[in-house]
């Protein structure tokens, strides 16, 4: 079987998929009596047309980079980790416990501690389904989905009964101490004398997301563990032949995956909300699946796909605001179309394209 050239594979196919998704979305917008081109303009202008827009787009993108990388790492071992949502929820709990544990003197101490807390809790939440898969053969898709529900119920219980701020009606913790406040883009750019709007929540976690992407790339393609993960993912019998332990690969890949998903909380819980809310993840765990699919489980692709979904999220908010006819649900439909075309319907474009390409070559 011949393969398409890389440029087509990672450039052209996603582009066609995206265009198709936008065309169908456009028809939907047309159907409710609005101008699709104007809608597209609002989305783009609202997300990348200003420093303010970028600030939100990159904030959302940071969340999606973490959850996307989580899915990507597990997928290299052919583990379909659907549990990013739950792992990120637990990551939030871990980060919150760390931040509330002591009166942090400075963010440089709180930041690594929060990363460790979030990652550890996320990994721990992934460890149980991973162990069940590796030792008992319980399918990882089923168990991770179920663990999403357990995580959400657990968080509700803890926020209502244990962690709720005293004298408060809302199920949320007290604000984190001042010393746990992470520098935002506004503050960081000010160190270099660059001005940036104050309100967008993008913060130092964005740099962490870039670092995590590099980490995943090195892990998968440069380390012995990554070699074992990929070998196992391509063929379990062959991996066993080579003396690679399936148990260790499943555990390692899922722990790293859960850790990455958990680290999303550093951005959303520590960086933005600065307290633990009941719904801190907001579906980012599921978007991560689409992001990883679109990015072909490569960190670079995942990063770019995360930015794209950041654009869709931020642009969607603007669209809802500027075009009242386009409701919140409508925006979810558009996002779903993008997910469907880039993820699930990938072969619809790929197969005709392969045929066309090889006919031309031969």
């Amino acid at each position, binding site marked *: *079987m*011949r*393969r398409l050239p890389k440029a087509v594979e990672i450039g052209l196919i996603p582009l066609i998929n995206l265009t198709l998704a936008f065309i169908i979305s456009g028809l939907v917008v047309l159907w409710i009596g609005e101008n699709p081109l104007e809608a597209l303009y609002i989305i783009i202008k609202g997300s990348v047309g200003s420093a303010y827009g970028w600030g939100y787009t990159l904030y959302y993108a940071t969340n999606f980079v973490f959850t996307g990388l989580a899915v990507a790492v597990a997928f290299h071992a052919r583990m379909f980790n659907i549990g990013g949502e739950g792992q990120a929820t637990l990551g939030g709990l871990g980060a919150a416990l760390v931040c509330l544990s002591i009166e942090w003197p400075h963010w440089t101490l709180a930041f690594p501690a929060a990363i460790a807390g979030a990652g550890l809790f996320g990994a721990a939440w992934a460890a149980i389904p991973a162990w069940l898969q590796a030792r008992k053969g319980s399918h990882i898709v089923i168990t991770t989905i179920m663990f999403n529900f357990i995580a959400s119920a657990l968080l509700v219980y803890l926020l209502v009964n244990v962690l709720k701020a005293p004298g408060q009606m809302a199920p949320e913790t007290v604000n984190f101490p001042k010393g746990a406040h992470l520098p935002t883009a506004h503050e960081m750019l000010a160190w270099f004398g660059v001005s940036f709007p104050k309100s967008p929540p993008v913060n130092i976690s964005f740099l962490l997301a870039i670092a995590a992407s590099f980490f995943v790339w*090195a892990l998968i393609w*440069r*380390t*012995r*563990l990554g*070699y*074992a993960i*990929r*070998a196992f993912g*391509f*063929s379990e*019998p*062959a991996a*066993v*032949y*080579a*003396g*690679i*332990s399936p148990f260790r690969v499943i555990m390692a890949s899922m722990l790293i995956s859960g850790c990455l998903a958990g680290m999303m909380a550093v951005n959303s819980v520590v960086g933005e909300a600065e307290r633990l809310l009941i719904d801190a993840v907001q579906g980012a765990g599921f978007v991560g699946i689409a992001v990883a699919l679109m990015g072909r489980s490569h960190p670079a692709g995942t990063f770019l796909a995360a930015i794209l979904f950041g654009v869709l999220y931020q642009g969607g908010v603007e669209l809802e605001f500027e075009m009242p006819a386009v409701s919140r649900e409508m925006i979810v439909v558009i996002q779903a179309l993008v997910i469907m075309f880039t993820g699930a319907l990938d072969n619809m474009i790929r197969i005709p394209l392969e045929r066309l390409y*090889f*006919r031309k*070559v*031969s």
Partner: protein
Amino acid sequence: MTEINGRAQPDAAAPAIELCGISKSFGPVHANRDISMSVQRGTIHGIVGENGAGKSTLMSILYGFYRADAGEIRINGKPTQIPDSQAAIAAGIGMVHQHFKLVPNFTVLENVVLGAEEGQLLRPSLKLARSLLARLADEYELHVDPDAVVEELSVGHQQRVEILKALYRQAEILILDEPTGVLTPSEADHLFRILKSLRDEGKTIILITHKLREIMAVTESVSVMRQGEMAATVKTSQTDPETLAELMVGRKVLLRVEKKAIEAGKRILEVHNLSVTDSRGINTLKNVSFEVREGEILGIAGVAGNGQTELLEVLGGITEAEGNIRVGGKEISLVGAGSDARSRRRSGLAHVPEDRQRLGLIMDFLAWENMSFGYHNDRDCNHNRVFMDNRAMRSATAKRMRKFDIRPDTPDTQARNFSGGNQQKIVLAREIDRNPRVLVVGQPTRGVDIGAIEFIHQSILDLRQAGAAVLLVSVELDEILSLSDRVAVMFDGTIIGERQTAATDERELGLLMAGVADGGRS
């Protein structure tokens, strides 16, 4: 062209099958290029060629699995369209596939009738089939119990059911794809007797095989295919195996490798009372014991499925087992931690698996990644405990590719893009080039072209020369006889007999393979 009631009337003079200018390509690959061939009625016609020469594609076109891009098929002189296998059956063509297409839990009778039932009720068809089966059994020595359940039959009998299926559908032309691959020598002899009597009754038979000996034994004429083209069609009586091999490969080939006599040294691999019970509770290996010495090749012969796969997997550290194995005098563990493939390699035991695509290689990995597969924890593959040394692995691979004549010799080629022979050479290069004390090798030349077979056999002999102990498991008796110093025959999970290669022959081993414990000596 004469037609009576819509059925073609055989034109006595026309060949049974004529292919004219058949071409078929898959994407950029020309599987068949302008193939022309004709087969006379009432003859056995052989088709030989290396893997990927286009034999299977050609037969698939004839049987309606593929449609030719160009060319014409004539059956009994009449141009015929064969868009699907129904049309092939209607044209009187029957096919016996290499992997049988039978329903295992149906009886013989039900399998024969399946797809050719007449009417809504099954009973009349079964009755008809039963009487026909009885007649065919007498006529062609095709004896099978019609009420036996197929999965309980031996492979040889299952193959007869396949032939009966074709004859039941009134096939006049029978295509057999590698029919002897799974048979014992005596079963193969029986098959050839059946084929000859079918031929004497006027049936036309096409025999696809890579065993030149069989071609010489039963065919009247033979076509040689090479790289999608028809290299030659000759009368069998006017050719010999060497000529055919040369036509297949396009250059001179040595069919037998030269083996130097060397003195066997110390015992290196000692296997004692090895037993395996699989997940269904069946003993697939029963008290297997043997030993292999330095500079010695022990061949394990036997019909596929008699425990050889399990033996290889135990030795390779894939399956757990009971019993004892010693490598160089040191006991190795057979269960739990320390019984995995990595520990085996550390103890100096290298394993070339039977199925290179399923076990031996990661087909999506590049050549250099595969060249370290299983040895990826070794120092020469790594910078330190965490990071691998990709550059060192690439250059080591480039060296090995030249040494083992692997083509293309680019380390950045994906394993799946190599031919079967070159894939096998990658596995061999990886396992042999690290100078193991013991090499366990399964079916080293399965699906490998003739040119590469020579090289692979030579590499195994070189390793023996260097003092390694080699355990060679193969279903090819020729291979066992030409390489091994001693032969052990496996039957039903045990070693039924062991002979010095020089003191035995194909007939005796054949009887052992069929389960006759004394090899027919008494």
